[in-house]
């Protein structure tokens, strides 16, 4: 009896302890979640504030409306989608989309090659790229600007210029997907080859269907980088509205002479910018997690 009693007590104690620790954890998580979400909530609320256009000291708008969103896309003389914002958005979207497609193709080809082929200097090449990747990209900014300028790909022609910059070195980001490819058994390739498939068919028909998560991951990261880029984009669009992306264009709204008129529009712009990324992530979320972790395990 004695023993049973004590064990009961212990049991109850553990339950209570569990409950307490769970409560604590939940409270901590809730606090973190609130802190994390607050800026987003703030931006969304501000974007619906229409009583004035500058920064104010309160969060909940006194008057709600869609005027800020309308102003982003509607120009009094040029009509719908005649605003600079619409142009910036289009620029960003084209840049991100083309980069996503090209970069994905490059990365997958690269990974497949390095994972499945054995050729002279393969190791050396990989090491070389590893070292090359350690130099910060910003170092090349000025020289890239000169080159692009001489090719006529700056200012109003910044979009193709930017695509070139983003895509150019993308082959070097093969690590994660190569890691994933390495986990796919080689015997599958061999079986396919025996059945008469060529190398390309092996990639398209065998490897890629198995590597869906990593493909999605590559597309996502390739899309996100140009979508949010500021530094390169600002340098290359250089004072020409027609060539700016959203981040650069909207940055101008925060300047001294404009912030009073454009602040709420800036918030609305921030929300609109987030929309495609959110949709993309919601649709592809489950693959994304698989992709990130999948590439890290070598089976």
């Amino acid at each position: 009896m004695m023993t049973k009693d004590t064990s009961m007590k212990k049991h109850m104690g553990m339950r209570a302890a569990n409950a307490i620790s769970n409560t604590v954890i939940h409270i901590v998580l809730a606090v973190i979640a609130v802190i994390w979400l607050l800026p987003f909530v703030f931006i969304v609320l501000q974007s619906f504030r229409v009583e004035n256009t500058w920064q104010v000291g309160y969060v909940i708008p006194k008057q709600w409306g869609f005027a800020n969103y309308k102003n982003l896309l509607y120009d009094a003389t040029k009509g719908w989608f005649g605003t600079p914002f619409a142009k910036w958005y289009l620029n960003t979207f084209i840049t991100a989309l083309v980069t996503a497609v090209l970069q994905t193709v490059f990365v997958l080809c690269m990974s497949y090659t390095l994972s499945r082929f054995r050729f002279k200097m393969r190791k050396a090449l990989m090491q070389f790229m590893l070292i090359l990747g350690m130099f910060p990209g910003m170092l090349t900014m000025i020289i890239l600007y000169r080159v692009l300028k001489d090719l006529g790909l700056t200012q109003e022609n910044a979009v193709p210029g930017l695509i070139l910059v983003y895509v150019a070195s993308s082959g070097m980001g093969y690590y994660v997907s190569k890691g994933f490819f390495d986990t796919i058994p080689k015997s599958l390739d061999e079986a396919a080859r025996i059945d008469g498939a060529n190398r390309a068919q092996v990639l398209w028909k065998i490897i890629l269907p198995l590597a869906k998560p990593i493909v999605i991951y590559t597309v996502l990261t390739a899309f996100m980088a140009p979508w949010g880029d500021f530094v390169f984009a600002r340098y290359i669009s250089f004072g020409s509205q027609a060539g700016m992306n959203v981040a650069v264009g909207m940055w101008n709204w925060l300047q001294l002479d404009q912030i009073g008129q454009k602040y709420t529009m800036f918030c609305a712009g921030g929300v609109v910018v987030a929309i495609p990324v959110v949709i993309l992530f919601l649709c592809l979320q489950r693959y994304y997690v698989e992709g990130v972790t999948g590439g890290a395990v070598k089976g």
Partner: protein
Amino acid sequence: MKKTLAIVLALVMVLALAACNGTKPDQPVTPDQPDQPSGELAGTYDVKVWCADNIVDLTKKQIEDFNANNEFGITFNATVEPVGEGDAATQMITDVEAGGDIFCFAQDQFARLVQAGALAKLGEGAANIVKDQNVPDSVNAVTVGTDLYAYPLTADNGYFMYYDKSVIPEEDIGSVEKLIADCEAAQKYFSMENETSAWYIASWFFGTGCVSEWNLAEDGVNFESVHDTFNSPEGLIAVKGMKKLLDSPYYTSASDVAGFSSNCAIVVSGTWGYTTAAAALGDNLGAAPMPSFEVDGQTYHMGSFNGYKLMGVKPQTDATKAAALHRLAQYLTSEQGQLERFDAVAWGPSNTVALANEKVQANPAIAAVVAQGAYATPQGQIHGSWWDIAKVIGTDVKEAKDEAGLQAALDNYYNAISALFTMSDAEKNAWGVIGTCNSTDGFFFTDYQDETRSNWAEDLPMEEVEPGVFRTTQAWDMEEGVEFKVRQGASWDNAFPADNFKVETAGTYYVQLVVETGEVTLVPAE
């Protein structure tokens, strides 16, 4: 074989890329803008104009008006891009070649732009027009030596005080102390950008009579010297005044009039904030010159910078186009152009006729900036680094615990300024005496109260009388209690004695230093 072919192909491609580069001219040459006879200017020109976002549409319209009405037969095919005046120099200097042909910028960037060769010199005719039609200070702002490099666009780039009439009683607006008390009583903020902007910090120093005057060298490009008295007893008074505001719990370092919507009662800002401030406060908005502050029983009216927005023309390879561009810039900055801009966005004109216009005078913000003008220091040519060096004073003062801390803030500032001018080895190695009230014209230390001299600002020369022993080049009158140090190369890396040398008996002395031991002595004159 295959490999060689691949290498050859790669080389050909690289060369093809390089060839695209080869034919372009590298930098536009800077022609002295000749005043072309009008007939030769006729033609159509593609131009790029940079101006602030809120005047883009107006500027487009003005250029169309110019195209329709000018007597020279010039037609501009203009692209007007919004580039803020605050950002123009950075953008221009990034790539002058690709920058705007005509661009607007705030005056603080003038020196940088001249240095970068981004501004074309005005011809004699254009220069005379500018001199005749604009406020004299605004003409100085575009002058280097005897040459003009830009067109004044506004004369309202100064700051003053916006306040909330419902919080601040009319009779208190002249006193910093009362304003602080009012703000603390109402639990509303006094907003002035003292911690991040040298532009506003200077207000305190100008109030006590400090100056920072920078001299361009003959070449109009580099600075050769500075007369800066921020590090002086007056400067110390200024930072004491600043400290009062910085220590208030209801002080915030900002210059955005949007602060009125978030619990500010006072914002020190400029005319650009008028529309926003008026919309936020309505009838309660007041605009007044800067207040006075009190230190040790004396009051000092806070100064300000009086600055200008300017319009510049980029040097061109085509002299005809350059001349045509200058005509356009003249048109855009004329009385009519400035009044149109006042009507559209309430920018205060620099053109004297436009400034006298009734509707301009009726604007309270412009009235305040004009009233503050009596206490304002025209913003001359200032070394580009000054802004970054001086803005640190604010944070240093905020952290200072006592008077020594305040003095340290000024010392830091002074050393950074001194370091801007690279010295020759002889200057770096030379020893000098610096202390309370130095001056170069004969008196040393005796006339402590003389306002025209500044303490701890100049080094008195010393010469090597025997190896390792330095002595002042002449004997100086010294009062009891004056303090000094002997230092090398006008910096504090090598300075003796560790604590200031204090004169105990008044007299006429040479100051002598033995470098080896760091011993400083007074040698009585015969």
